């Protein structure tokens, strides 16, 4: 198959424009080696070494964040102790949005450049993103009840976050329902790309609409409105969530790599070594 035919038509059209980014030389010398380097076999070997460090990072930062958040940070003047939900709520909400953007990005790269690993990573991110979205909604409901008097209100921030959960679930349902994995990847990429418009809506919802939800916890333009210990606890928890997300997404991608690459030579060679490891253990 000629290389051009595998690319989406819009990319092909762009290549006709005399532009270095879309020239054959650029493609052959720069992009192609990059995606070869991102081969599933290399990813598999690299993440095997990375995973223990990611888990250690996640646990240590979570312990530090919880220590600071529960034992050092003072009581909130207006919300009492209920505010301590913030240390899980805000990191979870941030992760839910960030992971969606990363998922859509890898899905589109996998589609546009026919990069297998990128599509596998996108598929691996979805359950973790959905988990963080549900956690943000759940902890938000448990925070809303004592402070607003309601578990749920149909306000812009909450509704757009709920739509994010539906987008994750829809992405997983769509990709799992198509048997041909590459076609499933492509259909999922389209859905993820269209749904990405929801992320800025969530982020700016507290500014665009008059909502019950409080404004941004941290913004680039203003000094933080919270005590240093509270802020530091939240940031430590955020780092923990990042490390957790990397670890669990890598772990799931490794499973997907093995499932999809089972027929390849490198995977078969790996399989024999795994059998040996399993025998030694048992």
């Amino acid at each position, binding site marked *: 198959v000629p290389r051009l035919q595998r690319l989406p038509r819009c990319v092909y059209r762009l290549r006709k424009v005399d532009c270095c980014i879309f020239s054959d030389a650029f493609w052959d010398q720069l992009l192609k080696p990059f995606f070869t380097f991102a081969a599933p076999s290399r990813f598999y070997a690299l993440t095997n070494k990375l995973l223990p460090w990611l888990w250690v990072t996640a646990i240590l930062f979570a312990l530090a964040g919880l220590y600071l958040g*529960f*034992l*050092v940070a*003072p*009581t909130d003047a207006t919300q*009492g*102790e*209920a505010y*301590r*939900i913030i240390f*899980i*709520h805000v990191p*979870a909400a941030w992760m839910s949005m960030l992971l969606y953007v990363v998922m859509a990005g890898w899905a589109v790269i996998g589609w546009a450049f026919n990069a297998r690993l990128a599509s596998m990573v996108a598929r691996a991110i979805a*359950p*973790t993103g959905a*988990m963080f979205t*549900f*956690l943000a909604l*759940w*902890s938000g409901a*448990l*925070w809303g*009840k*004592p402070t607003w008097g309601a578990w749920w209100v149909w306000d812009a921030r909450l509704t757009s976050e709920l739509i994010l959960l539906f987008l994750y679930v829809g992405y997983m349902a769509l990709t799992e329902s198509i048997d041909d994995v590459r076609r499933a990847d492509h259909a999922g990429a389209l859905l993820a790309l269209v749904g990405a418009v929801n992320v800025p809506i969530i982020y700016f919802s507290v500014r665009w609409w008059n909502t019950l939800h409080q404004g941004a916890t941290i913004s680039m333009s203003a000094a933080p409105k919270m005590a240093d210990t509270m802020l530091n606890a939240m940031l430590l928890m955020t780092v923990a969530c990042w490390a*957790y997300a990397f*670890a*669990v997404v890598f*772990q*799931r991608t*490794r*499973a*997907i790599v*093995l*499932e999809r690459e*089972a027929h390849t030579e490198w*995977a*078969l060679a*790996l*399989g*024999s070594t*795994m*059998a040996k490891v*399993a025998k030694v253990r048992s």
Partner: protein
Amino acid sequence: MRWTSLGDFMAMGGYGLYVWGSYALALAFMLIEPWLASRRHQRAARALDQTNSQD
């Protein structure tokens, strides 16, 4: 530290159920999800072993 006893800590100034309810689900999710992911990985590895032994 502002807590006088473990009971005081667990009560969270009357918001115990809300605060601990949030963290309990987070903990449960973050234990179950890695477990599911590693189980999927082990299954894929086992399937690979079977194809190998058939060859």
